[in-house]
């Protein structure tokens, strides 16, 4: 087998171990959350007996270690458990499965993240390469200044400015990004235009600046001078001689920003009232809906691990030293 597969399998195994450790951390930190779900739902008036019975029904009376292994075992089988919400003191159980609650929200989040990524990643790389190509010109400086401005502003501020400009003053796009499952693709895209634009402004800066830095870092290499002395033009030097050696750092920063699009967008979701998984998680924390919080956190952790794994693999396959060992 090619050694690269062995490396990838090793990384994958390491990713699983990381996920396991993270799941334990998630579980214990959620267990440490102050307050009690039973009391929160049943209210101050509930008797101690009622609360105890309620806790027993949810399994909260068992030791934490046992609960962790029950939960982890179920997750391994694909069962994320049942939400705590929807139950009440009267004994009526309208609770839903966690998967059922998360899945539509996650689809929305992934859709917004995907659309943003399709715009932002190529844009950032092209801007980064052209800034490196025309470095220290007015073009480079203005791109740098603009992206630095957008990254320096809080995201809700960017969002509100865009709403003001593109929704209130010039009624081009809706300020509310409400979507529902029956919507056609074109309509969906129209609805999410402003949040996608906001997120693009926020993540392009980081990716673009790192791309530029990765390329410029390589321009001092002896093989770049050699390429010049072989008659290569500036654009050939950037695209043919520097870029192939810069994919690893670029992939790392892209992965970092894509992960942010999945796990860090709650503020933008709230501003545009977009039904994504970030909002769901915040709501669940407020209502102490432990199974949902745990499932969301696990999904977020998994996203980070998978994206970083992909970045690692890109780093390996674009490095001839690793791809073609001696």
């Amino acid at each position, binding site marked *: 087998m090619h050694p690269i597969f062995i490396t990838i399998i090793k990384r994958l195994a390491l990713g699983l171990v990381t996920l396991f450790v993270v799941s334990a951390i998630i579980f214990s930190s959620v267990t440490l959350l102050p307050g009690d779900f039973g009391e929160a739902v049943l209210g101050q008036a509930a008797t101690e007996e009622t609360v105890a019975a309620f806790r027993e029904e949810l399994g909260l009376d068992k030791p934490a270690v046992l609960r962790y292994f029950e939960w982890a075992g179920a997750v391994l089988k694909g069962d994320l458990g049942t939400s705590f919400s929807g139950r009440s003191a009267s004994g009526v159980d309208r609770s839903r499965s966690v998967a059922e609650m998360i899945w539509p929200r996650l689809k929305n989040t992934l859709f917004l993240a995907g659309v943003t990524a399709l715009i932002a990643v190529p844009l950032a790389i092209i801007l980064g390469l052209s800034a490196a190509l025309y470095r220290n010109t007015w073009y480079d400086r203005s791109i740098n200044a603009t992206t630095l401005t957008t990254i320096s502003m809080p995201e809700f501020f960017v969002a509100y400015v865009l709403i003001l400009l593109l929704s209130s003053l010039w009624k081009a796009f809706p300020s509310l990004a409400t979507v529902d499952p029956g919507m056609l693709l074109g309509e969906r895209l129209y609805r999410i235009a402003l949040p996608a634009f906001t997120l693009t402004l926020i993540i392009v800066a980081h990716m673009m600046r790192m791309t530029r830095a990765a390329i410029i870092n390589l321009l001092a290499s002896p093989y770049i001078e*050699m390429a010049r002395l072989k*008659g290569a033009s500036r654009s*050939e030097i950037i695209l043919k001689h520097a870029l192939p050696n810069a994919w690893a750092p670029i992939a790392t920063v892209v992965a970092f920003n894509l992960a942010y699009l999945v796990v860090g967008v709650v503020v933008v979701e709230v501003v545009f009232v977009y039904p994504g998984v970030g909002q769901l998680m915040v709501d669940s924390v407020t209502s102490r809906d432990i199974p949902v919080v745990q499932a969301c956190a696990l999904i977020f952790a998994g996203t980070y691990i998978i994206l970083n794994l992909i970045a690692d693999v890109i780093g390996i396959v674009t490095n*001839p030293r690793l791809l073609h060992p001696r």
Partner: protein
Amino acid sequence: MSIDNEPNVAQSDGSQNTLLDMRNIHIEGFSDEQWHPIIKGVDLALERGQIMGLIGESGAGKSTLGLAAMGFVRAGCRFTQGEVNFDGTDLLKLKDAQKRTLWGTRIAYVAQSAAAAFNPAHRLIDQTIESASRSQLRPDAESRRDAVGLFESLHLPDPANIGQRYPHQVSGGQLQRVMTAMAMSARPDLIIFDEPTTALDVTTQVEVLASMREIVEQHNAAAIYITHDLAVVAQMADIIKVLRFGEEVEQSETRTMLSSPKQAYTRSLWSVRSLEKPEEKGEDIVLSMQNIHAAYGRVQVLHGVTINLPRGKTVAIVGESGSGKSTAARVITGLLPPGKGDVLFNGEALPADLKDRKPEHLRQIQMIYQMADTAMNPRQTVEQIIGRPIELYHDISGAKKAERIAELLNMIELDESFLDRLPAELSGGQKQRICIARALAANPDVIICDEVTSALDQIVQEGILKLLLRLQQEFGISYLFITHDIATVKAISDEIVVMYQGEVVEQGLKSEILNPPHPEYTELLLSSVPEMDPDWLTELLGSRTN
């Protein structure tokens, strides 16, 4: 030769044969917030098919002048005066885009470190034909076939397939030859060789030199050959130009230059190689490696190495890269615990691992490295660098420490004005002296010198070697001197150990090893050391084919 392709070329000096005519070149470099002159009015004329050797110490402006012949200056440098007439056109009056059409096709460059000058991301064949392909000289398929032919005439192994490899997959000597093929690919009129064999072992250097000379002659190209090694330039060049401080010292035909240099400076360059210490036999063994086997991971590097170092004497370990010289040093210092075997110090076995050694063990064996630059903390002053071992090993501080530092500086022939300097403010030779002082500060019995002079110019080398010899006489220090340079070995050693592929080929007194009869490998190694005779390479190649 493509005179026919350039019918409208006006010859600058009327001679039909002048290819390159550089006149009154002035180049400045920007540092410390101001412009400093690097080249101060040098003229250089080269005929078609002629090879000129440019020699001088580092900082003499050799590389800068070589690159200037292409109309190129590095970032932070600029031409202030002069003209570079290449085939009748002043390159300095051309725009970058126009110069690019000449670079790689009519003027080619061969860089010092092939390992760094090849792009790690592309296959060798694609890099070899890049310039020819860009200029659409011929179809790419034809260029590839031509490249295979060049690989073959440069005696590369498996010429048909070696181009499919990536730079990291072939050795340094092979890469340097591929780079020569790359320079030849578009059949340039002029090639600039910038110290192309400096990074190679002597045994490899011979082959590369021979291939380069052969192919340059075959295609009747002109070349500028930059080097600091006189013996190498004697083999390659028709004429030699000596540079110093950005100015020409003298220029003449190679044989004249070697036999009767006019200037005192040139003669001083010539004389460095004459340093030779009389050998002395030592019986009292201070340090001994006994049947050492060592490995990096699963790769076995040393196979039963036994080396004895007599007290107060110098043992030189010679061999090419990969022979295990530096690994032996790592075993002695405890950085690499051996798989089998012992290191004896004054007859007692030292703990194999550095972690288990006592400060006293560490004090007794000190080390000096090849790259003085990277062996010193760039943020520490000379005072801190030398003061540290005094405090660490001898627990001396305050006024006594200052006294001792001054004494050490005096020993290495520097004065107290250096105390507050940072490594970046020192020259290469001064840096190495500070490293020697740091080693001396511990009062060691043994100093391991790992290629300590190979990054230095010959005149500076001589100074360092003389200093080391003097310190040995004064303090009776024993040196284990790792080097690949036979001239250095002659200068400093009492005994010589020849290593090859992790084994000791032979150990003995200098006179025994350097004089015949030799084992086969020692013979190859010794015969590969270039001599100051212009016919040396030709004769050597002749004798090897027989």
